[in-house]
């Protein structure tokens, strides 16, 4: 499954996207756990935000292989 990163998270991980293996359906919290194992917990603090198919999601949101999942820091537009 493809994972997208934005802003400071993208810079800190030094990549804009990732490929991970999942068994569908899976919750965002499991994906986050997998990414923490790969990169370290410091990159995925509690306030990290997540979107699924371009809509805000939360830890309990379930996703499958074809969904677009993105992680990013709290937004600062406006």
């Amino acid at each position, binding site marked *: 499954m493809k994972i997208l990163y934005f802003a400071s998270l993208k810079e800190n991980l030094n990549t804009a996207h990732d490929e991970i293996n999942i068994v569908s359906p899976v919750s965002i919290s499991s994906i986050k756990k997998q990414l923490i194992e790969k990169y370290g917990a410091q990159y995925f603090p509690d306030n990290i935000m997540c979107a699924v198919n*371009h*809509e805000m999601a939360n830890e309990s949101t379930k996703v499958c292989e074809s969904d677009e999942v993105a992680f990013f820091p709290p*937004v600062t537009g*406006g």
Partner: protein
Amino acid sequence: MDKIVVQTEDFDLTTEVSHTRNNNPQVGAIVSFIGTVRELHPGSISSMTLEHYPEMTEKSLKSIVTEARERWDLQNVTIIHRIGELKVNDQIVLVVTTSKHRQAAFESCHFIMDYLKTDAPFWKKESTEQKEEWVESLESDDEQKKRWQS
């Protein structure tokens, strides 16, 4: 018709208000908000870069406007948010709301900005001669949004 745009170019308030108003005889109130790039400390910031999540941004702005329409009786709404490199005093964002009465126009404009601040995927990075730094989100922005949820 609503206008929701993300663009690098600047915008002109008079043109956008006129476009939003659209000579609609139902419009009795127009409220606009412009957010601009400010200096955090004297001489501290030389430029700001706005990044966004292109596929999600307009969708999230549209859903904020849809939610505003569920709360207030609105005519046309405009949101323009700029991306790319901006300098101190540059305009960043414009929200124009139109309605029959002033309360709906005032409140919906405020609501849209409060939700945009916490829900729309834009990120600011400030650059000075010394360093580049991502802007941290403010807890006060979440508090402002919560006011509309009570």
